[in-house]
């Protein structure tokens, strides 16, 4: 059997740029997103949300709402299961408050009615008696001893001594090696600075939407936009106290997720309302709800210190990161600590992280969660240190870049990766050598992300006409169906157009982990390659039967079964279509399957380069030019790889320059809409240029590495380095909005 690998020859389909299989549906409006599902008898579900940042719920009176004509169900926390597993408890409480509203926008109750107008009217009839409590929304304020306490049962984990009093700091983590004091003592130059970033939202254009239909006997279905419908099924089943096999979840097309749809918010509410009303219930969030009640990323307060010898050798790197995760424990500060210095080699490294609770919505993942903020701080100091040493910042990075065999900042020694290639490509790139004008600056920064594999199950069915259907359980958020088809076409040796991919519902395949961790093209792709190899064996066996020769005397080459050698006999090669056409009489359907916990994910590094111009009168930053250089291992569909690079850069530009959650003194979010929370639009952006580096991942047959997350790690740092150069002052807070840049320039002049 000739299996394709990254080493054994040229690819025919992988690496090409065919049309995406979902393209026509999306441009003609046939594609069905979360809010597009309609079921007979469907009701409208709406959620009542807390107007307070922190309040005890003394009582909820739903009687007037229930009495309103057209209202079919009202639910509160009491309608969810009482014995939810511990792992799902916070998720459930985040959907509907249990005893306390923990942030502005926290769900308190929900109604299902025959129309939106009636549902909205019913929400106004629900009487909630709140006892307003002191609140805290700032990460540093929340760490103080006298800060309002969110939970009296959370004690800081990870301390050397067991704490005796509850705290808003739910955990402390530490990573590193060597002795940083010794390392700093050996340094000739040291730079240390404090940094702050605000929370930002993933900004997906499609709000959360779902339709739940759950009968009184506990069987049901759910249609929703999500990055992981198996996760939705398992969480909802646990929260509602039903068997997972009784709930079938279908993922709609998704209008963006970026990590923000890796958890649930409205899905158990729709199902609980449906169970009570006995009819399907659709819940669609407004944009206001998306901002106030779904998960943005953490805001962060950071301190970074790096020392180097005068020859440019880094001797020590140290960081302290404080991330707030909203009202529940579990930020990604540990991943921030692990990735912070991952691009560098130093004998002495230490990062300490604090996971902090505040009265804000529960943080959700956002592309490489935890890493971009840390990179902003670290890469800013790296550039400043290089400048103090009189070394070009790119050369300084090349000199200190982590290589295979170096001890990583998070523990183990690095395996082979493409960081050096990205830096050398940047150095040779025309962009890096183009002169700048007045008030302009150029910044570079590097970034790292782990990527992982995870549980995956795929199926491949050969049709009687020789076309191929493949089923995956990983939601397509970035064109993965095209990549899946390309890999199967490559392995089977059939044209790309003959392979179609669907995202199957939860009853059709074994468990699939969520589309996150940049895992889908890697893990589902490898599972499909193995499914195709399974099918190829069966196809060869059928040919062997037809030819009446042993199975081992048949091999699969270029989409055909053929005798493996002269001794096998003389038979004309049989195509996949020919064998498939005889399937009915040679043993029935031909299929391939694979289920596994995917091993072998390869890390990914990137270098970004950006030119900006700062208006000295207003502080406005204009991004003039941007180049992304990233290691993809093997780009299966280069256009989508480039799209991931560009998307990460654009979101990073928004995070760096415009986007921020603004809370008032009352603890309420002041800008829950795209008018006041401004994400970049096309007219704000230059073309994002891309360079794909292909340093094959040995853990994947074709060398694939995940690419979806690394691209958001360097942008804020690269832009901060660029803006700092243009403005003549080091920028240490995000976003670098006009007032903040102007103030920094004025302060520097003063």
């Amino acid at each position: 059997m000739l299996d394709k690998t990254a080493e054994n020859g040229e690819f025919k389909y992988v690496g090409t740029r065919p049309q995406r299989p979902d393209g026509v549906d999306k441009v003609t409006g046939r594609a069905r997103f979360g809010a597009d599902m309609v079921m007979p008898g469907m009701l409208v579900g709406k959620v009542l949300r807390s107007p307070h940042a922190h309040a005890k719920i003394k009582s909820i009176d739903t009687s007037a709402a229930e009495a309103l004509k057209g209202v079919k169900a009202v639910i509160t926390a009491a309608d969810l299961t009482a014995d939810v597993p511990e792992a799902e408890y916070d998720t459930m409480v985040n959907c509907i408050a249990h005893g306390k509203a923990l942030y502005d926008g926290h769900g308190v109750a929900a109604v299902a009615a025959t129309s939106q107008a009636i549902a909205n009217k019913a929400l106004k009839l629900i009487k909630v008696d709140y006892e307003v409590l002191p609140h805290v929304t700032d990460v540093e304020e929340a760490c103080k001893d006298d800060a309002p306490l969110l939970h009296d049962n959370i004690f800081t984990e990870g301390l050397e001594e067991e704490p005796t009093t509850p705290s808003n700091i739910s955990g402390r983590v530490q990573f590193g090696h060597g002795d940083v004091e010794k390392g700093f003592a050996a340094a000739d130059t040291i730079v240390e600075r404090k940094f702050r970033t605000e929370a930002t939202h993933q900004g997906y254009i499609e709000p959360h939407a779902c339709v739940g239909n759950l009968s009184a006997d506990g069987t049901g279905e759910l249609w929703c936009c999500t990055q992981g419908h198996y996760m939705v099924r398992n969480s909802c089943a646990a929260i509602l106290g039903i068997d997972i096999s009784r709930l079938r979840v279908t993922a709609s097309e998704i209008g963006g997720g970026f990590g923000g749809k890796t958890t649930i918010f409205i899905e158990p509410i729709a199902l609980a309302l449906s169970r009570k009303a006995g009819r399907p219930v659709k819940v669609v969030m407004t944009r206001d709800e998306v901002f106030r009640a779904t998960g943005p990323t953490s805001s962060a307060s950071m301190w970074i210190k790096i020392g180097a010898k005068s020859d440019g050798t880094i001797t020590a790197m140290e960081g302290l990161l404080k991330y707030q995760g909203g009202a529940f424990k579990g930020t990604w500060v540990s991943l921030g600590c692990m990735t912070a210095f991952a691009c560098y080699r130093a004998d002495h490294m230490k990062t300490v992280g604090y996971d902090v609770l505040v009265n804000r919505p529960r943080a959700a993942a956002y592309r490489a969660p935890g890493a971009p903020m840390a990179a902003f701080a670290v890469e800013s100091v790296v550039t400043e240190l290089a400048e103090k040493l009189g070394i070009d910042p790119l050369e300084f990075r090349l000199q200190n870049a982590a290589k295979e065999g170096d001890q990583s900042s998070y523990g183990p020694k690095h395996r082979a990766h493409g960081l050096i290639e990205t830096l050398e490509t940047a150095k040779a790139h025309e962009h890096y050598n183009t002169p700048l004008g007045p008030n302009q600056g150029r910044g570079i920064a590097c970034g790292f992300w782990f990527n992982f594999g995870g549980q995956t199950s795929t199926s491949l069915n050969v049709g009687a006409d020789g076309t191929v259907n493949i089923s995956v359980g990983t939601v397509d958020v970035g064109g993965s169906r095209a990549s899946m088809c390309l890999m199967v076409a490559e392995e089977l040796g059939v044209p790309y157009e003959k392979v179609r991919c669907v995202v199957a519902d939860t009853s059709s395949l074994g468990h699939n982990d969520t589309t996150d961790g940049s895992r889908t093209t890697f893990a589902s792709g490898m599972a499909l390659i193995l499914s195709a190899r399974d099918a190829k064996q069966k196809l060869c066996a059928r040919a062997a039967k037809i030819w009446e020769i042993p199975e081992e005397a048949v091999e699969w080459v270029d989409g055909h079964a053929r005798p493996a050698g002269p001794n096998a006999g003389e038979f004309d090669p049989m195509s996949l279509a020919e064998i498939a056409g005889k399937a009915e009489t040679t043993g029935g359907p031909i299929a391939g399957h694979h289920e596994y916990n995917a091993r072998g994910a390869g890390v990914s590094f990137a270098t970004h380069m950006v030119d900006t111009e700062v208006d000295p009168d207003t502080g406005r930053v204009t991004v003039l030019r941007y180049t992304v250089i990233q290691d993809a291992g093997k780009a299966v569909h280069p256009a989508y790889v480039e799209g991931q690079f560009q998307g990460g850069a654009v979101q990073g530009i928004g995070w760096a320059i415009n986007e921020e959650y603004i809370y008032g003194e009352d603890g309420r979010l002041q800008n829950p809409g795209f008018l006041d929370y401004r994400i970049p639009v096309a007219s704000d952006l230059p073309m994002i240029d891309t360079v794909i580096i292909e340093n094959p991942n040995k853990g994947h047959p074709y060398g694939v590495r995940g690419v979806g997350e690394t691209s958001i790690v360097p942008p804020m740092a690269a832009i901060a380095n660029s803006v700092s150069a243009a403005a003549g002052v080091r920028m240490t807070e995000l976003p670098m909005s006009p007032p903040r840049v102007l103030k920094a320039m004025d302060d520097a002049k003063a």
Partner: protein
Amino acid sequence: MVKVNLWGSLKARAGGRDTIEVEAQTIRQMFRALGEEEPGLVPVLETGISVAIDGQIYRDDWFKEVDEDSEIYLLPRMEGG
């Protein structure tokens, strides 16, 4: 015996040790032996952490082999967006 490196804040749960040597052929056996050696680690091991073996990270992979020549690090559970 395999030598297991702990991440910094696990030291507090392991009597101040940052490495522990245990007898194990698989990740599952390694977890069990670590729990017996340092019971303070059990709650963390039960949350489903990751293990790096010679730089390759494994998650929820009990039966992956470990050998005494391997470089082994315990890491927090890998997640992404």
